């Protein structure tokens, strides 16, 4: 109460834009990684084809990483997400290839099969997640232990469901969610990109209008315009890159032959936005809305910041733990759809070590293990950085063991840089 009033501090260029400098640093690091690998691979890294592959390889880990943000923000950890992914994948694979055709009598290829399988996977993932959350929240077993146990249990539940066999090929529609087998094509990708730009601009406008209505300071109009331009450019640029990746002629020919037609001379088509990436975007938007605009999100961050305060404010922190783990379980199931669809089958080792990649993605993305701090977009960017490192090193021909050593080192360094950054800026 004794603070003297200061003159409003001079704002430099970046401050006027009100862009999170931490996010800026991460984007910078990501661009650096891309440029270095592009040089090392003689320009093969930043081709539309590789960027397309990079995005579809990132989706599964990125989806789970958004859930891991909430888990870590509430001061817990989930070591079981890779194993839970395997159980969900096994269950969905068995549902579509054995349970529904053999037990229920839906013939293979029946249009309802993929949807029923996904629903079964989502229900199972949510239920298992909720169960783990119950053990953590109500029975107060540390999440580290519950999910360490879960890591061993769920991977092997998956094994028993399939008797250890690889299950495939999966349903054709189901496999469309894996990446390259299901894309929007150029036109729809552009349409979607434009809708996204419109939504983003409207969001910026609405938030500005709301601030003005309540007499709060807004950033200068030019800064708002630059922000809008960056966002629009980013979205449309991304679409342009994906759209410039052409479907190879051989594959086009097969597609036309399958439809009983002949490939016209000079015909080309591009893949466009994969459905799996669309799913990731939907997850990212939903999770961001939950984090910033709902009571659930508010309580997640409050509980992470000060569990006692949250409890004293009337928040049911035990139930909150159940919800957070249930949400994580549902996201594991979604990741299981994407991962098994991408591989076109379920195999026992699916999602192995994913828990570590997911935790690393969240942490590189700025989620603090001490709780209370983390962002959804950060975690996704973290997943993208990790995947770029891994893919880039593979393209350069770095040995697998060395790849892992580099990724491990980067994780530790990222956290160190974060600690130094937070100390410098005085943020907690």
């Amino acid at each position, binding site marked *: *109460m*004794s*603070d003297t*009033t200061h003159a409003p501090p001079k704002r430099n260029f970046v401050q006027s834009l009100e862009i999170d400098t931490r996010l800026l640093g991460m984007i910078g690091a990501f661009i650096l990684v891309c440029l270095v690998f592009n040089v090392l691979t003689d320009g093969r890294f930043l081709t539309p084809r590789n960027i397309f592959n990079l995005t579809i390889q990132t989706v599964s880990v990125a989806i789970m990483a958004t859930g891991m943000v909430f888990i870590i923000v509430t001061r817990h950890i989930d070591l079981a997400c890779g194993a839970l992914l395997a159980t969900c994948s096994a269950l969905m694979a068995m549902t579509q290839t054995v349970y529904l055709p053999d037990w229920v009598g839906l013939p293979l290829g029946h249009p309802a099969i993929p949807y029923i399988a996904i629903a079964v996977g989502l229900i199972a993932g949510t239920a298992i997640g909720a169960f783990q959350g119950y053990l953590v929240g109500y029975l107060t077993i540390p999440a580290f232990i519950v999910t360490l146990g879960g890591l061993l249990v769920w991977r092997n539940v998956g094994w028993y469901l399939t008797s250890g066999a690889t299950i495939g090929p999966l349903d054709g529609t189901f496999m469309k969610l894996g990446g390259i087998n299901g894309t929007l094509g150029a036109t729809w990708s552009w349409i979607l990109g434009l809708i996204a730009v419109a939504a983003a601009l409207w969001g910026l406008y609405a938030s500005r209008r*709301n*601030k003005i*209505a*309540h*007499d*709060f300071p807004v950033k200068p109009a030019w800064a708002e315009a630059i922000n809008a331009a960056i966002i629009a450019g980013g979205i449309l640029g991304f679409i342009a890159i994906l759209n410039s990746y052409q479907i190879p002629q051989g594959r086009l020919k097969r597609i036309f032959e399958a439809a009983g037609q002949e490939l016209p001379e000079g015909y080309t088509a591009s893949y466009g936005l994969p459905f799996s990436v669309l799913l990731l975007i939907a997850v990212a938007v939903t999770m961001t*809305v939950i984090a910033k*605009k*709902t*009571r659930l999100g*508010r*309580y997640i*961050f*409050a*509980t*992470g*910041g*000060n569990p*006692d*305060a*949250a*409890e*004293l*404010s*009337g*928040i049911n922190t035990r139930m909150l733990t159940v919800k957070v783990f249930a949400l994580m379980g549902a996201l594991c199931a979604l990741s299981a759809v994407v991962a098994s669809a991408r591989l076109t089958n379920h195999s026992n080792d699916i999602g192995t070590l994913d828990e570590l990649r997911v935790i690393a993605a969240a942490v590189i993305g700025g989620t603090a293990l001490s709780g*209370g*701090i983390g962002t959804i977009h950060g975690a996704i960017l973290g997943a993208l950085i990790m995947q770029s490192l891994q893919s880039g090193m593979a393209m350069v021909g770095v040995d697998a063991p060395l790849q892992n050593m580099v990724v491990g080192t980067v994780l530790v360094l990222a956290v160190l840089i974060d600690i130094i950054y937070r100390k410098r800026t*005085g*943020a*907690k």
Partner: protein
Amino acid sequence: MSTPLVDLRNISISFGGVRAVDNVSLDLKPGEVVGLLGHNGAGKSTLIKILSGAYAKDSGEIWIDGEKAEINSPRDARRYNIETIYQTLALADNLDASSNLFLGRELTTPLGFVDDARMEAETKKIMARLNPNFKKLSEPVSALSGGQRQSVAIARAVYFNAKILIMDEPTAALGVHETKMVADLIKELKAQGLGIFLISHDTREMLELCDRVSVMKNGALVGTERVEDVTEDDILSMIILGKNPKRDAA
């Protein structure tokens, strides 16, 4: 005699082997300020935390407005219009002032989303009344000074039209000027008819602000006195010796 706003009857609670509150009975009337005094560890915070729903009592009864109340959680206490400023302030450091003020009671838009703009505007209004210097509305409260954090905690208790206000060492982090502001606030709220439990170590301040003072020692109630019947020395000996020399003499 009017029905007390709050009537705590024979409240006890133990932690492990420690009897933190031992058979304590206290009451509070509308428009009255009752002070709680005692050494650190006497059980003051624990007693009021039972009233605020943070701890579940082992035995005893809580009566509110002449009716027996079941208070098993902070949510229950809020339903009885009991608001608490905790000694630890109970703020989520990573959230800003308005998120803290409305924590657990967020204002929402018609679609059910949290309405940050409206909450911030409301926060601005109440802070203008309580602490005109408060400007850091959108920064995490970890960036605030002790006094500013305290005013956020006070604002949270005052905003929601409490009928019963519990203040556990509300001036601990404050300077002289701010302490005076809190004292004025207490008088204002008392005039509005609120019942206030006030915990403080400043005996003189307590004699000025309170109608009655209760002294606790080792979990038990030493006694409750009307302030006009006691001197500062009487209270000190109640705190230190666990008895009131005047009463013993009588």
